[in-house]
């Protein structure tokens, strides 16, 4: 009994040590963001005189609030689009019978193999021709649907009972109503997971936005932070304040939705 307790104490100790290593960069980020410029190169960890000046500078002297808004708007629109179209396609492929069904699914699935890097050059030439460079549409259009989402939703939609759909049909529900009112509510956990993934993916998107954005006002948060930090040189107090401003809202959302997010990962990750 004592040996067992001793062993589990070691396990807790090991896990705690790992946990400290995980959060250590965040602690330094916060400590540095709260320091005055002269303090950041001194040895102590926590600022002697904590200041919010760095946050103020980032929020007022750069277009940070605008970048934040750009990212939020783009991530919300793309997430709504993916949620709607991917579940509609998933439903159609799983529950409606029509000639060519396998072909459509095969084509969409095959696009999963294509890495983004291969597509950015053609997307760029296309955007240049149609005048999409440096526009919100230009930043968003590649992410409006995702083959992964179709694949995921098709699997979950397959679990919706046909009898339920047929009963609703007899009651006079339209085909589109079957999708929105019967099928969608039944796959809500999968849909929530898809939304979280899509939002995170677009919130983090970097390569394509970096290519297609040209003016500071159009920047998304990742592009804004990268270019701002590049210009800030060794003003680490400002870089860390900007990073903290990008990290903290996400952390807050994570703390609130922690269970759903992690269970969503399990739900979707293991289905593959």
């Amino acid at each position, binding site marked *: 009994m004592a040996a067992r307790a001793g062993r589990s104490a070691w396990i807790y100790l090991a896990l705690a040590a790992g946990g400290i290593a995980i959060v250590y960069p965040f602690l330094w980020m916060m400590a540095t963001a709260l320091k005055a410029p002269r303090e950041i190169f001194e040895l102590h960890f926590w600022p002697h005189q904590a200041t919010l000046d760095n946050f103020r500078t980032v929020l007022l002297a750069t277009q940070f609030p605008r970048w934040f808004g750009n990212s939020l708007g783009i991530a919300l629109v793309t997430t709504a689009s993916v949620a709607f179209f991917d579940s509609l396609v998933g439903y159609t492929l799983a529950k409606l019978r029509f000639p060519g069904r396998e072909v459509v699914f095969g084509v969409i699935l095959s696009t999963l193999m294509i890495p983004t890097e291969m597509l950015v050059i053609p997307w760029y030439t296309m955007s240049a021709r149609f005048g999409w460079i440096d526009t919100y549409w230009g930043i968003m259009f590649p992410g409006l649907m995702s083959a992964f989402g179709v694949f995921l939703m098709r699997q979950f939609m397959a679990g919706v009972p046909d009898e339920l759909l047929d009963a609703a049909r007899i009651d006079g529900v339209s085909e589109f109503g079957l999708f929105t009112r019967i099928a969608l509510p039944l796959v809500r956990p999968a849909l929530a997971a898809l939304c979280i993934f899509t939002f995170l993916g677009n919130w983090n998107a970097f390569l394509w936005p970096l290519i297609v954005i040209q003016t500071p006002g159009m920047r998304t948060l990742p592009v804004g932070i990268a270019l701002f930090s590049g210009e800030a040189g060794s003003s*680490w107090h400002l870089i860390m304040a900007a990073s903290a401003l990008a990290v903290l809202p996400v952390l807050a959302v994570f703390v609130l939705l922690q269970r759903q997010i992690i269970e969503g990962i399990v739900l979707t990750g293991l289905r593959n």
Partner: protein
Amino acid sequence: MTARARPGLRLGARRALWAYAFLAVPAVFYVTLRLAPAVAALVISLHRWNIIARDKPFVGLANFREVWIDPLFWKAAGNTLRYAAVGIPIQLAGGLGLALLLQRITRYRGLFRALYFIPFVTPIVAASWVWQWMYSPQFGPLTRIFDALGLPTQAFLRSPRQALYAVTAMVVWEFIGFQIVIFLAGLEAIPRVYYEAAEVDGAGGWRLFRSITLPLLNPTLVFSAVYGTIIYLQLFTQVLNMTFGDPGGPLGSTETVVLYVYQQGFQHFRMGPAAAATVLLFGAILVITVAQMRVFSRQVEY
């Protein structure tokens, strides 16, 4: 009215029409923004593609030849493989180890799981800059730890020999929580009776792990390895941001294939060679992931 009179055929046809209506917009999307661009990348790789010049002559495999003889491309390709070869095993072993530890505790399991998971949801660009500060050779937090322990100061990201591993550490940090969550779910799916039966037969901890846990965890391992490969072969954001002032790191030591594509295509505007490099990357990802699925899946068959 007629539909009600002959329900069988009419209803089927009507439903098919609905299906086509539902698929119309997505079909246009997947064809014009996924399939056509993939073909276009191949086409561009076979032309001298200057975005301003009207004339875009067909040059056969000249772009591929140019990439093939570029030492920086091979440096990038070698680095990319090294990122994967170093990062994935650490990530899998570390993730599995921590998942096994988490499985043995009863209290605070959810708390630890959430803690380890935080980096996965952290914006990658911001996290990369935080890590650049961690590695800063004069005053960075890691330098202070090394000082405190009496170890010699390290150059980390500024050293051609260390930079790649310094970036890899950040990527492992970012994905370890994801890996833990996936492994925990895989472990929970293994029926307890197998362990109980083996314990009755007197099998010890290591044997239980070798002959029950590992084989039954195989699908999770395959998924993790393939997913990890796709992530590591496409590394870009972390590398660009962690060695921002000197993209590709000292002597190109952190350069990856995707960073090479970005520099060729969008900094030097050499679209042809950039497209050729993406075609090569596509081929490499395909071959490696298919090979992984074959090799790993075979192990479980016996």
